[in-house]
């Protein structure tokens, strides 16, 4: 590919990226419509606090007993730890799962449209014994809960 062809491809790519930016700014594209949006800042944050702030807009959460975290007390294989989070709070719009002792704690963010229940489940990697944290955004407010999971064999393939 000669230089001028490369330049055209580069310009074409950057133009389409900026068109997207303009469309978002003009309110033509809602954030939920941009399917490829990925919260880099949150997933790369090294502290729990920064990870939550980047994902939810604020770092401070209120501990809530209306959030249940179902995870094993002892995980025999840290590479595959089943974690289920359920919240009996009204108007939940998102649920984040963090693993306290992982180098980058943010593990998964679930954005829930109206009609989807606050009941999500997946499997996470845990490097060592520590808390699994659930942060729930409901009605614009942040709630959280933690559960300690003992990890006998670390899950990061070290």
């Amino acid at each position, binding site marked *: 590919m000669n230089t001028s062809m490369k330049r055209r491809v580069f310009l074409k790519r950057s133009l389409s990226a900026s068109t997207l930016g303009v469309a978002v700014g003009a309110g033509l594209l809602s954030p939920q419509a941009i399917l490829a949006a990925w919260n880099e800042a949150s997933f790369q944050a090294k502290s729990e606090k920064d990870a939550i702030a980047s994902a939810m807009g604020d770092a401070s959460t209120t501990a809530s007993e209306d959030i249940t975290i179902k995870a094993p007390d002892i995980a025999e294989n840290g590479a595959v730890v*089943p974690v289920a989070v359920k919240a009996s709070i009204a108007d939940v719009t998102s649920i984040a799962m963090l693993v306290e002792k992982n180098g980058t704690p943010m*593990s998964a963010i679930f954005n829930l449209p109206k009609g989807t229940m606050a009941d999500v489940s997946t499997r996470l990697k845990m490097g060592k014994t520590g808390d699994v944290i659930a942060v729930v955004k409901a009605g614009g407010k942040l709630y959280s809960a933690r559960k300690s999971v003992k990890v006998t064999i670390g*899950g990061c393939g070290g």
Partner: protein
Amino acid sequence: MATSIKIRAKAKDGVTTVKALMTHPMETGLRKDKKTGNMIPAHFIQNVTAKHNGKEVLMAEWGGSVSKNPYLSFKFEGGAKGDEVEISWTDNKGGSDSDTAQIK
């Protein structure tokens, strides 16, 4: 026909439960290849979208710390037998896949 996603969707008492299993290495980028000594590059699903009859019911963002061959389960109100549930994912390397299943 996509084969990297297995979907089971069941409607009961006005709630549909969806369970999906995806085939993906979910490499964190922190592992070393024991043979070559080189770091295995990060390769993981970043976005998962689920739709019910074309309407979005879940948008998930994942990091490398979701387990290999990721499992996902969620529930939404409504859904009837025969309705379509579609699950699609995109990863950090531009890979993607999508599959649909009918609610039972």
